[in-house]
């Protein structure tokens, strides 16, 4: 009911974005149909420009690029979603704890957040992804462990704001336990901005996974993601522009859709709230 109310207030751009995201997940669901075609190596048709038979062209092994881009959809989307959830979970836990308890706890956790923000994210990401055994779990853990600081700062501010509101004071006065106040009273009220954060986070995480796979330290073969397809594009940049164009376009479209959705959600959640 609340969700429907939410959707009806989304601006047009947000609704378009939501539709694109839904369509992408639908493509991901249908992608097993293309798996066979994405794997088929045909050296006699390697590096062919887009045509009716191969709308996105073929790669250096003659594999159909359209099939490969479709086959990569679920991996890119799922890793983005899970990694963003992990990142948001850590960020919320750290930020909410700091904001709720204040004092020394806040001082220590705020330093930790500051420390994480000082590092170039890609430096830490590369180290984690390259040093831990290569697997989807490694990529998710690496993204989750390195990108939570922004969410934490956000959650801290949000919890600081609402912990002094009447309903939180009332719950405390009635003797509710701290975890209960945090989970039952503060979390639901901090939720709208967190959903916005999560939507931005998914776009971010998809980009991070793509960057890692592009640099060759992401998902191990035979798993294929958009970044992984793009990693071979520089070798063929003189001969085959389509290897760079289409997987990147899918990536850009997905990230843009999630970001646009996040902006729409932000417009809904901040509407009528005084600054």
């Amino acid at each position, binding site marked *: 009911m609340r969700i429907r109310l939410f959707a009806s207030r989304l601006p047009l751009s947000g609704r378009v974005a939501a539709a694109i995201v839904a369509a992408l997940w639908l493509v991901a669901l249908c992608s097993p149909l293309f798996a066979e075609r994405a794997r088929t190596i045909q050296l006699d048709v390697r590096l062919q420009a887009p045509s009716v038979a191969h709308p996105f062209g073929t790669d250096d092994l003659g594999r159909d690029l359209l099939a490969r881009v479709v086959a990569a959809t679920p991996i890119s989307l799922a890793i983005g979603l899970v990694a963003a959830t992990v990142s948001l979970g850590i960020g919320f836990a750290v930020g909410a704890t700091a904001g709720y308890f204040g004092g020394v706890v806040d001082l220590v956790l705020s330093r930790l957040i500051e420390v994480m923000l000082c*590092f*170039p994210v890609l*430096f*830490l990401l590369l180290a984690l992804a390259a040093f831990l055994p290569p697997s989807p779990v490694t990529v998710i853990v690496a993204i989750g462990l390195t990108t939570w600081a922004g969410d934490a700062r956000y959650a801290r501010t949000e919890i600081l704001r609402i912990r002094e509101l009447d309903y939180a004071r009332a719950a405390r006065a009635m003797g509710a336990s701290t975890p209960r106040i945090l989970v039952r009273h503060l979390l639901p009220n901090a939720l709208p901005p967190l959903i916005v954060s999560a939507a931005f986070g998914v776009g971010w995480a998809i980009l991070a996974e793509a960057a890692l796979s592009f640099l060759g330290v992401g998902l191990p073969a035979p798993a294929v993601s958009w970044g992984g397809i793009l990693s071979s594009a520089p070798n063929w*940049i003189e001969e085959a522009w389509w290897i760079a164009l289409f997987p990147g376009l899918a990536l850009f479209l997905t990230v*843009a859709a999630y970001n646009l959705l996040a902006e729409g959600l932000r417009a809904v959640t901040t509407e009528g709230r005084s600054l």
Partner: protein
Amino acid sequence: MIVYVARRLALAVPTLFGIAVIVFLLLHLAPGGPGTGGADAARRVSGKAAEEMRRLYGLDRPLPEQFARWMGRVVRLDLGESFVDHRPVSERIREALPHTLALNGLALLFALGLAIPLGVLAGGSPESGFDRASSAALFALYSLPTFWAALLLQTLFAVQLRWLPLYGTASDAAPAGLAGLADRLAHLALPVTCLTYGTLAFVARLVRSGVAEARSSDYVLAARARGASRARAIWGHAFPNALLPVITLAGLLLPALLSGSVIVERIFAWPGLGRLYFDSILARDYPVILALSLLSAVATLAATLVADVALAAADPRVRDGAVG
């Protein structure tokens, strides 16, 4: 003001310590290190390098002792030798630094130079045609993956049109004098563009929303009522206030630029710090990895400190602890 600066400096000490701990933890992810006993064979460093690491970092000693030893060397500015060519790490960093500074310095200059007028113009008349068009363009840039943009620019300007070189810092037979300078600038054009647009989009959006918000505030209306021109009210009153959040985040532009450098320098074969870091990751050159992580984080901390002090100087509310 002095109290504020002292407080801020005191808070930086534990942060500095935390940075050192995180970097130290990176070492312990290393194969052969205590953290990764069973890493697969392909990722294991050679027996000799593992031996060298044990000796260098005293990996057989208890953790606190290892940390103390390492810190002891770092504070004496001894960053060790590279495993790859056995030259001092500081020397390798000194060689790469100017290339990265040129790239990022130009990128920052262009990003701020374009973002501020763009943000002020758009924020000065919200919902106008210009605002909508620039918002849409900035949004697209914001979502554009750097490596894809780099590949597209290379395809268009280097392969198809042949206006600009594909990669490198200069042509092999670089001409001297003015033509040589032109050659270097041509090599800078694409990588600088790729590093610029992300920061540009980020800062322009920040300035735009700040100006748009300040535009309807009392002090801007008051300035208009006193007869200040529209431009004067926006640039003289709304803009300085919109700049405050930009100053706050200025320090954090540094790690973002360095992240971008890793990707851009790899694609454009640019021998800077980002390339050095990536090559060191692939070669498991731990002394270089640790040194670069530490230095970049410390540089960011210093930049945020400067930004915070600048903010306190600009905004009395900050140093009195009323906001921020």
